[in-house]
């Protein structure tokens, strides 16, 4: 299978008023994408589709910035989407069972995406600064050490 791991696109800072009323965690969860982040990731999504990736499972964290990023990927979607709270937390082996399909895309957060790649490839640190809107493509079986890195794609690849 092919696994496309996207870090969410660039998001606005948390709204201080919301942080004061609803708490810092709720305010962080409600951060929307910036106009620039949205514009740039829309180009990334178009290029992903042009490369021939047809996503049959799109998983995303419940954070607004991840939901909005996933929404921009839907032109390349030919299957279903699912909100996945596990993507807003450190990865576990149990989470890997959710990666079912020929081409699965996930939209999540650092540092957990990087930890997921390390778990799946069995490699050490990638030495990668995973920028917002960036993509890592893996290929193989979604089990510890069962995948290899095919591509590391910066967010401005699609410029």
């Amino acid at each position: 299978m092919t696994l496309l791991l996207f870090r969410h696109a660039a998001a606005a800072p948390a709204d201080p008023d919301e942080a004061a009323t609803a708490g810092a965690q709720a305010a962080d969860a409600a951060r929307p994408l910036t106009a620039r982040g949205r514009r740039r990731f829309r180009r990334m999504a178009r290029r992903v589709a042009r490369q021939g990736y047809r996503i049959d499972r799109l998983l995303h964290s419940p954070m607004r910035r991840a939901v909005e990023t996933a929404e921009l990927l839907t032109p390349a979607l030919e299957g279903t989407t699912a909100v996945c709270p596990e993507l807003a937390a450190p990865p576990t082996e149990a989470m890997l069972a959710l990666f079912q399909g020929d081409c699965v895309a996930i939209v999540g957060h650092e540092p957990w995406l990087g930890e997921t790649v390390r778990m799946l490839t069995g490699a050490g640190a990638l030495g990668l600064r995973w920028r917002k809107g960036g993509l890592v493509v893996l290929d193989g079986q979604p089990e510890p050490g069962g995948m290899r890195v095919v591509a590391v794609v910066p967010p401005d690849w699609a410029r």
Partner: protein
Amino acid sequence: MPHIAPWLDGLCAALNATRVDAGDAAAVHDLRVATRRLDTWLRLADRRTLRDDLRWLRHAAGPARDLDVVAARPWPPAVASALAERRMAAQRELARAVGSPRAVAIVAALRPSPPLHRRTVEAVLTRMVARLRAERVDPGVVDAVHARRRRLRRVRYAAELIGRPTTALVRLQDALGALSDVNLLQRTLPAEVTPDALRRALADADAAWTRYAPCLEDLR
């Protein structure tokens, strides 16, 4: 501007009630209604994500709801007992779904949704009504009438969002719902439904459409 909060609060209330008691027929019904309303909301917002999650939740409640509808009729003790047993199995499945982290995450992911623009809802509603009025539906085909009912329901929810009158829509939906109940009964206990009962329900649904469909024009 229409906000998601009231409908999302409806989902939270239904989730909480089914978590306490998945055997609560009203809560199961409310859960399905809430997921449908939110699906309409996402359609109006032209969003694709989270709709599959809402469908998953709705389908988790489907078997329990279907059995509640069927069991609401008077049955001989043996049939009632068999239905109750099936209902217990269905509510175990439902309890697993509503108690899952995914159910919590659906609410969390929907909560920060920005409000819809009233003009957007009005424009989409106009298109939905035009399509509903223009489409040809064979009044003798249950699936076709059922599909019309689903579209009608989305029109009603969109109309509710912007405060348009929906009394006639609700009556029409109820009339089409009676056909769905007969159809459901036929799928659950085929021996209990005569072909004549289904024919009568189809005729009633068609009569209701003829009577109430002109009211759709008031929504444009």
